[in-house]
């Protein structure tokens, strides 16, 4: 049987043309590779980007509230370095519950294991105001706000993992029922300005992911990598000079651009866009300098013993249109892939008929 099939195949494998064989076996394999490496990626890119916006027309997720609304958030991870002993030496009289927050993991302060001291979430509630950063922002305590007395920050918090849990009052302007196409988080240490060519500004690289919590369940959206500078140049309100001024401060924007199907999956997960009952975790991990020097005391907007500004913006997607395009085009792609599978057998040979017909 095998011999028969092989014999039949031998007769069919070479396409005859007036000038001899048109495609040899190598070229058929090349055709297969082109399907996988050229056609398929383009088709998948079309499907995944269906409905996504190419522009960056972001809307403010936070409210502009100069009155100082209190917002709910906690630190989940504060860098990864364990400097508990150093802060204890610096501040021997500081209560354990503050020293304990030199290390925060998964929302719990675990710097010391002193019996009887309950681990505390590191609170970061503050004000939504719009004059510190271009978009409305909130002030959040920096990584070592609790264990460090003013001016005693040890200069580094780590390069491993920073994370925050933001409750829904951080993004009241994301309307119920909306599906998100992109989210942008801007982190800036607005309390310290530098000359714009300050030598400690540098390019950095890190990874990131978001976790959406709704109705007791969590959905992680990961795979984001970022390359940016820790220099944030912008115009802001200088209180002492009582005027807007251009400043170079430590900070950067982190933009999470979801594929169309991710937008739909997130929207579906949070109850069809029930943002009022959703919290979002922002995680930034594995920091490196682009110049390959050790990260150690590289400036980060959220590392320190003061406060930093966080603003949140978003861009939405038409979930009905995107859903239709994504599902329909995936179905078309499935039919096409199946057809290529059939066409790769002896049962149906449209390639050979087509190519044999167009070749001289």
């Amino acid at each position, binding site marked *: 049987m095998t011999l028969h099939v092989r014999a039949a195949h031998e007769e069919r494998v070479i396409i005859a043309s007036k000038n001899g064989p048109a495609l040899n076996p190598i070229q*058929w394999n090349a055709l297969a*590779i082109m399907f996988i490496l050229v056609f398929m*990626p383009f088709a998948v890119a079309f499907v995944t980007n269906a409905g996504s916006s190419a522009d960056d027309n972001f809307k403010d997720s936070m409210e502009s509230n100069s009155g100082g609304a209190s917002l709910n958030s906690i630190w989940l991870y504060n860098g990864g370095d364990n400097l508990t002993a150093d802060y204890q030496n610096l501040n021997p009289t500081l209560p354990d519950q503050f020293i304990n927050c030199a290390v925060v993991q998964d929302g719990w302060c675990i710097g010391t294991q002193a019996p009887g001291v309950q681990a505390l979430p590191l609170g970061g509630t503050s004000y939504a105001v719009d004059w510190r950063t271009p978009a409305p922002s909130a002030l959040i305590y920096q990584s070592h706000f609790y264990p460090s007395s003013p001016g005693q920050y040890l200069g580094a918090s780590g390069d491993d993992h920073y994370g925050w849990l933001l409750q829904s009052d951080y993004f009241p302007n994301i309307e119920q029922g909306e599906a998100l196409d992109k989210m942008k988080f801007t982190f800036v240490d607005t309390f310290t300005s530098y000359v714009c060519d300050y030598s400690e500004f540098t390019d950095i690289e890190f990874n990131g992911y978001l976790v959406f919590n709704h109705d007791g369940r969590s959905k992680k959206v990961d795979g984001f990598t970022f390359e940016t500078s820790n220099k944030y140049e912008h115009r802001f309100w200088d209180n002492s000079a009582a005027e807007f001024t251009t400043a170079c401060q430590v900070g950067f924007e982190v933009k999470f651009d979801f594929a169309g199907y991710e937008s739909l999956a997130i929207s579906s997960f949070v109850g069809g866009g029930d943002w009022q009952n959703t919290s979002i975790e922002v995680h930034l991990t594995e920091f490196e300098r682009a110049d390959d020097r050790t990260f150690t005391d590289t400036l980060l907007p959220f590392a320190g013993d003061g406060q930093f500004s966080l603003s949140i913006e978003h861009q939405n997607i038409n979930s009905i249109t995107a859903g239709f395009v994504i599902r329909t085009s995936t179905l078309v792609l499935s039919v096409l892939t199946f057809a290529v599978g059939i066409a790769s057998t002896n049962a149906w040979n449209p390639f050979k008929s087509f190519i044999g017909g167009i070749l001289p």
Partner: protein
Amino acid sequence: MIEYVIYFFTAFIAIGVVGQAGASGLLNGAFQRGFAGASAQIVSAKFLFSYTNFETFVRACLDGSIGLSGYVFLGSLGFLAAVWVNNLVEYRQAII
């Protein structure tokens, strides 16, 4: 899991290409074949992983993010892979 499937699939195609090249009188040395095959496999797998979102799309299909259409696509892709692997084993070319 998906990474391994893509590595396996691209490796199989690379083996098919190099095998055919050898049968046609090209890449006569074992070192040349090994080098060409490994290069083809690494480049194609790297391309699919790093420069396209093929892997994340397949992963999304697998976890149900695209609904029934995603599972249908996975079925078609599995069928295509099975046909090509069979063809490569039987005839040393993916499309016959």
